[in-house]
């Protein structure tokens, strides 16, 4: 049997070790780590990023949400100083990426969307060689690697080749590698895409720890639960622009209601009930088999609907989530 099956660390903590803070714990003090003004990236005629403004403060966990092609990754690449901007202003760690790219890259960590580890080297060697690119001595990288292997729960696999590791292990190694230079700013592009729930929770736990240690995090994600868990503040991007900005709770308050009532009907009959319930909610959304009623009191709306003779197959009252905000802002149409 492959060791991968038994190599899972024994004491995975399922809960999160630190409660997510929903409020930025750093005041706007002019010490913005990232500051963009009218930031633009064009590829030919296509504007991937179309004049965005943002500020990320030191110590913050900042998120980019948006459908595919919204411009999140292009923005991340400009902040990571690997993609020259086409227009606007950008400062990272108080420096200009156009002029000080290597100096900025020396002090940040990047966890790319696609793992780009050296598969034919061992886990430990991957950390060693990467650290050397940041000017660290052999003794420094050796010591740091031990610490990071522990942090990423990869100590048992330290001297195994990377290739046969599971996706979650490779992801953890990629994150560990991005920390080799003790970055002040960590950029994570879809850090948990493709991972199983155990691996995601472990990664979240690690990211919380980093935040506690004062690392500023910038995260792109498709997962609303991830954004709610991790981010103090986030922006929703669509079509290269920022369409909303705020804390997860603030965005829900601003763009959705406190609760959502879901009424499920036999497909095709759902629209018949719309006239009866339209005034029970701030907004009614018609899906192929359901009606979504955005209301502050879902139970009251349900009761009112029953009283009016509306009898869905099933009903559900739930709290509004960031996903509701996201879908409202960027639409339900599939983006490819």
């Amino acid at each position, binding site marked *: 049997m492959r060791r991968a099956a038994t190599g899972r660390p024994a004491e995975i903590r399922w809960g999160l070790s630190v409660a997510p803070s929903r409020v930025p714990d750093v005041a706007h003090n002019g010490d913005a780590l990232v500051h963009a003004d009218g930031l633009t990236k064009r*590829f030919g005629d296509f504007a991937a990023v179309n004049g965005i403004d943002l500020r990320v403060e*030191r110590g913050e966990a900042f998120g980019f949400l948006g459908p595919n092609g919204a411009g999140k990754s292009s923005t991340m690449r400009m902040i*990571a100083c*690997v*993609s*020259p901007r086409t227009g606007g202003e950008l400062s990272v760690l108080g420096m200009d990426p156009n002029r000080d*790219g*290597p*100096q900025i*890259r*020396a*002090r*940040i960590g*990047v966890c*790319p969307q*696609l793992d*780009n*580890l*050296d*598969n*034919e*080297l061992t886990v430990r*060697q991957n950390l*060693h*060689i*990467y650290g*050397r*690119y*940041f*000017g*660290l001595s052999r003794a*420094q990288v050796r010591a*740091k690697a031990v610490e990071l292997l522990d942090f990423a729960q990869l100590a048992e696999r330290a001297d195994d080749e990377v290739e046969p590791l599971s996706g979650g292990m490779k992801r953890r190694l990629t994150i560990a*590698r991005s920390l080799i*230079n*003790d*970055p*002040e700013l960590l950029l994570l592009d879809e850090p948990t895409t493709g991972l199983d729930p155990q691996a995601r929770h472990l990664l979240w736990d690690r990211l919380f720890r980093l935040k506690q*240690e*004062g*690392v500023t995090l910038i995260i792109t994600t498709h997962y609303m639960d991830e954004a709610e868990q991790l981010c103090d503040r986030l922006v929703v991007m669509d079509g290269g622009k920022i369409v909303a900005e705020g804390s997860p709770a603030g965005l829900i308050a601003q763009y959705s209601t406190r609760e959502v009532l879901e009424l499920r009907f036999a497909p095709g009959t759902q629209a018949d009930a719309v006239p009866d319930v339209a005034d029970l909610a701030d907004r009614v959304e018609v899906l192929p088999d359901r009606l979504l009623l955005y209301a502050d009191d879902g139970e009251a709306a349900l009761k009112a609907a029953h009283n009016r003779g509306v009898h869905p197959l099933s009903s559900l009252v739930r709290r509004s989530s960031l996903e509701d905000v996201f879908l409202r802002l960027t639409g339900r149409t599939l983006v490819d």
Partner: protein
Amino acid sequence: MRTSTGTAIGPARSALMVIEAFWTWYKRNWRSSAVSSILSPLLFLIALGLGFGSQVRAGDATLGLPYVQYLAPALVCAAAMQTAAFESTFPVLSSFKWQRNYIAVTATPIGPKALVGGVLAWIAVRLAVSGAVFMAVAALLGALTGPAALLALPVSILTGMAMAAPIVAYSSTIETEGQQFNAIFRFIVMPMMMFSGTFFPVEQLPGWAQPVVWATPLWHGTELARGLSFGGVDPLAALGHTAYLLALFAAGAYLCTRTFTRRLAV
């Protein structure tokens, strides 16, 4: 306040660190490439130099030398050319596309240009390693005319690099699975190996083919390696060969900095 331990290192140190990473890999994986880059040129030297060469009478065509000694300085260049071509194709494509480790490197203080320096320098190290092994075995087999024949080693590295730099530039533009490389091996590397004066003098070829041969880096390398090994080389000719190889390398390296930057900093 948290402060990072990272610093931006200069281009020379960057190249050195890239070499260090390749070396780490090579120490684990050298066996996989040893057959093609080290063993096969030695088999050529034994089969053609000693075996077939035993049937070749020393004469004008062999510059008065036993065939194996005539062959050795040229063969180390041909082997370098071949190894260089291989190291410049699939490994480069993989580093952009499959393993994507160039993308990992350029997320660090090391930029695309410094990376090019490291990638090319590493190929030179590879050529030096396999060339040195070849020379050592050639010396044991009595295939070297004397200490001067060791000069073929640096010439072979230069020859290989004149081949590697332009091919690396080309490989860095490839977006496909690398089918194009087979054409390079079949229609450039193999004919160059056969007809650039490695095994027999170019004068034996038809007149129209000779200018084509003069354009190849391998012919220049071969002429230079033999001239230095056996002595009596015309200094001006030696300078010309060196300049031609350096020019090919420089042009290729310049193109690499452009293509790497275009692909990695978009």
